[in-house]
């Protein structure tokens, strides 16, 4: 079955992404699996999201493109490290699965989920949203183009409506 994770994965391939930094996340499970099984991509599991900002700064210095996969709670962890992107004019493509919106059952996710877009903008990132599965490929393509052609940080927020609100009932 082909869905939005497959469409994003194809877009990343077309963008020439070869390093994938990620903090494991339920919403990104399938995309992480696809990237990990691709010999043309190096998947780097991080202990915290700002490591990925630094990782991909190094990747760009070395001539490679990357993507950073994280959950909205990780956005706050990245703030100081995003100075790299502003000061050095470094590209960064971030795909952020949202929590703390649309049917969220855990109130502890609300503060970062509700502030993620604003925090990213204040930290200098271009912010796009993705709420419809059929738009996934082209949204990531377009965001990657802004990031890599313009050498700026760009975040795509994948809405909880797209991913499906998390539940403890499995």
């Amino acid at each position: 079955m082909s869905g939005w994770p497959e469409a994003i994965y194809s877009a990343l391939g077309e963008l020439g992404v070869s390093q994938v930094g990620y903090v494991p996340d339920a919403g990104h499970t399938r995309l992480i699996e696809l990237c990990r099984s691709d010999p043309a991509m190096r998947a780097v599991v991080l202990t915290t999201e700002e490591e990925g900002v630094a990782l991909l700064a190094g990747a760009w210095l070395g001539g490679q493109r990357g993507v950073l996969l994280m959950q909205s709670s990780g956005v706050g962890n990245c703030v100081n490290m995003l100075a790299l992107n502003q000061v050095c004019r470094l590209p960064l493509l971030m795909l952020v699965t949202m929590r703390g919106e649309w049917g969220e059952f855990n109130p502890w996710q609300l503060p970062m989920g509700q502030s993620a877009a604003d925090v990213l903008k204040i930290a200098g990132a271009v912010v796009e949203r993705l709420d419809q599965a059929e738009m996934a490929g082209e949204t990531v393509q377009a965001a990657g183009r802004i990031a890599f052609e313009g050498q700026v940080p760009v975040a795509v927020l994948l809405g909880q409506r797209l991913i499906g609100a998390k539940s403890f009932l499995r």
Partner: protein
Amino acid sequence: MPDSRTVSISEQFPLRRREVAKALLAERGDLLVIAGLGSTAWDVTAAGDHPLNFPLWGAMGGAAMIGLGLALAQPARRVLVITGDGEQLMGLGSLAAIAVQRPANLALVVFDNERYGETGMQTTHTAYGADLAGIAAAAGFRVAGTVRAPEELEAARQIIRTETGPIFYAVKVRAEPLPLVLPPKDGAHLKDRFRLALLGPDAVTAKGPS
């Protein structure tokens, strides 16, 4: 706070950081160098500013991971990260992240003076016994050690240049005030000169590939 008597006296360490930087970077060949913010950026610059140095003025805790991204992108080149104990302590998790990737071409050297040099020489956690090389070894670095004497430094230098990584050394250096030797401060310039030197002119022109 631990009793101040338990703090080791780093002024007694024989190795001097500027000499260590000079030794590590002598005849550097095609070595790619990341320098952590603060004193290590000044040390690396004092050894000779170079387009294939990327000295940081911020991004504390990020030097090692920048080194990892660069090492993965450039597997045929050796990458040396030189940073301070305070900077590395802010990115301890990155030691685990690097060890998982096992980059054969990455070496990480921490100049450990047991002090936060840029903020007034307050003691860091290593002054109370935190063992950075032990942490790196436990995380899974292939080579990890602490250097205290000149002859150990020469042995470490050989390993950094020739052995399979990931390699980690904590070099205990004297806590000492030194004149600032500043690299260029503009980040976009530092990035462009690095990419120009490493990747060629296409990497920094508007129409060029990534």
